[in-house]
């Protein structure tokens, strides 16, 4: 009798090269994505050991974290950034790794371009020196972020040493309300679990809400798994996933495709499989979400009031410190708070669907005068689609401009920094103190909420603007 297995166990177990007693598993890695910030010290390590990259053909490099989002055709002005980018190019060339640098037609955020070009595949193990590698779990891959020592490990051996995490399943049932997006679902789950609620677990997302989601939506959800502490999150691949992958440049073709499909169709959780933890939420109760504090767990429905410190989990001191930083008070309503910046982009919400959503609200309206808006596509492919679909024209008519692809203000490594004290509505993934620039204050939200803020100049429920349109 075969033992009932979870999706996670099926993929994990088939990649275990070697087991160490009372230690980690040695896991084979199918795809290793590399970017400029977390790789130079790893390549230096290889050099010091005098060893090559074991599987350069399974390794892909793109520049994204530390790149400018204007004038990419000009030399990078900041010497430290320019040096870091040059190192990536040199290392990639030296080791025979595909390199999609600044200006390359395939350049973009690593977690956007991986799926776009079919590097991300169902049932694969994927790592990258970036915590949002969890994004690729949308395809039924085991994908997680790693540190630089581990980047070196994977370059050297195509393997990683990891203790096997526990399994958690999160079911979201029912149908989402109009105006509620995948981002809201993820922010809702994190608000329920807190930022450490899934630490030690690998999450499977199940239920109708995820079944009915597009791949872009699933990527947004899996992307944010790390924000509740989970190493990764995954969704069983189905027709939606197979359809997305088919025909992409690096995806298998012909008989290889058929063979892959035979395997991919076995990738689901068996009926009697056991999870270490299982949670179920009613999707129809989720509102458009917004955060009010300095971690992604501090989120709430947009029409709610900021909770009082006696009602929250964790220490009141930390909670109050957080609200002080945000210049908010317990019991405040978020609606109507004037904002200064809007950031649409990142590996969380920098895909074409996100720009379509943003445009749907902006259409026929104007950017509010008090708002600086940074709209940053996740890749050149997204940028091209924005132009082709007429979204750029629509945005321009409403007073918005489009920047060039990159991680941009999500982590503010480049010049896209929100100034101290300014309040930004961002579609990115972290509202940590100073994340978007020293002293910056971030409200995380969906592209719809960001668009509503961009045209009204304040925190606004996007449904108010959407209803007007249908009326």
């Amino acid at each position, binding site marked *: 009798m075969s033992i009932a297995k979870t999706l996670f166990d099926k993929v994990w177990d088939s990649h275990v*090269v*070697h087991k160490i*007693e*009372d*230690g*980690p598993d*040695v896991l*084979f890695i199918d795809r290793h994505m590399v970017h400029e*910030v*977390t790789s130079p*010290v790893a390549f230096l*390590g290889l050099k*010091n*050991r005098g*060893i090559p990259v*074991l599987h350069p053909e399974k390794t892909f490099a793109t520049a994204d*974290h*530390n790149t400018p989002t204007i004038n990419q055709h000009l030399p990078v002005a900041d010497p*430290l*950034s320019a*040096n*870091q980018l040059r190192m990536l190019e040199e290392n990639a060339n030296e080791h025979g790794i595909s390199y999609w640098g600044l200006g390359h037609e395939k350049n973009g955020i690593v977690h956007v371009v991986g799926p776009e070009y079919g590097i991300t595949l169902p049932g*694969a193990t994927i790592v990258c*020196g*970036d*915590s949002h*590698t969890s994004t690729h779990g949308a395809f039924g891959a085991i994908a997680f*972020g790693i*540190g630089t*020592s*581990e980047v*070196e*490990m994977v370059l050297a*051996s*195509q393997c990683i*040493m990891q*203790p096997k*995490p526990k399994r958690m399943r999160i079911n979201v049932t029912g149908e989402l309300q109009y105006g509620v997006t995948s981002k809201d679902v993820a922010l809702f789950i994190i608000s329920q679990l807190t*930022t*450490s609620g899934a*630490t*030690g677990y690998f999450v499977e997302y199940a239920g109708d809400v995820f079944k009915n989601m597009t791949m872009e939506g699933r990527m947004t959800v899996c992307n944010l798994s790390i924000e509740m*502490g989970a*190493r990764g999150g995954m969704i069983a691949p189905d027709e939606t996933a197979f359809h997305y992958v088919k025909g992409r440049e690096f995806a298998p073709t012909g008989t290889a495709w058929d063979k*892959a499909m035979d395997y991919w169709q076995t990738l689901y959780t068996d009926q009697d499989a056991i999870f270490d933890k299982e949670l179920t939420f009613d999707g129809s109760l989720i509102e458009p979400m917004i955060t009010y504090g300095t*971690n992604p767990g501090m989120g709430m429905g947009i029409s709610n009031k900021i909770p009082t410190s006696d009602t929250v989990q*964790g*220490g009141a001191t*930390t909670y109050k410190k957080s609200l002080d930083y945000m210049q908010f008070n317990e019991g405040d309503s978020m609606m109507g708070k004037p904002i200064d910046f809007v950031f649409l982009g990142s590996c969380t919400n920098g895909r074409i669907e996100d720009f379509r959503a943003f445009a749907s609200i902006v259409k026929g309206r104007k950017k509010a005068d008090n708002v600086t808006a940074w709209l940053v596509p996740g890749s050149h492919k997204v940028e091209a689609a924005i132009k082709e679909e007429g979204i750029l024209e629509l945005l321009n008519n409403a007073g918005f401009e489009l920047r060039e692809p990159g991680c941009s203000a999500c*982590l*503010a*490594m480049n010049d896209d920094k929100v100034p*101290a004290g300014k309040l930004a509505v961002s579609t990115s993934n*972290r509202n*940590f*103190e*100073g*994340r978007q620039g*020293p*002293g910056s204050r971030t409200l995380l939200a969906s592209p719809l909420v960001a668009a509503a803020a961009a045209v009204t100049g304040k925190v606004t429920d996007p449904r108010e603007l959407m209803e007007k349109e249908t009326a």
Partner: protein
Amino acid sequence: MAYDKFTTLTSTAVPLPIENVDTDQIIPARFLKATERVGFGDNLFRDWRYNQDNSPKEDFVLNNPKFKGKILVGGKNFGSGSSREHAAWSVYDYGFRCVVSSFFADIFRGNCLNIGVLPVQVSASFLQKIFGAVEADPETQIEISLPEQTITLIATGEQESFDINTYKKNNMTNGFDDIDYLLNIKEEITSFAKNTPL
């Protein structure tokens, strides 16, 4: 890279009783531009430690000469957020060899173990005991024994044990490195790779 061996550490500690200390606080992204592992300690807790004009913030613990030592004690969920190993590097480079908390974020914990900083997870009540003792007397000595897997407040003898898997414990005790281990099983990896479909 092989790192310092870790057996027993006896030191005073620096208390940081804040929860959810994220990696953007430990080292902000704008300081991740180096291509070598040098100088990260200077920017440890940069924005909590310095004003925007680079003058020290007097009320931050690293600027308080009373508190020093090789042990950093943080609140629950220490190291959440990004995978940047630079966070662990900056902790190490500043001079810490051990971080104590009641809960660690996964990636940060792994990064620490990989560079020779020992993450010691204690109960919430023991953590409070440590904060209390250190704040009452900054000279409080704490002993961390990796072979025994114990953390002890020396003055009172109060002690708790902590978990670490045998493999990692052996690595840290001897200064061994994961990559050396993997290179030793390279044949096993190569034959596995031949049979992978992707």
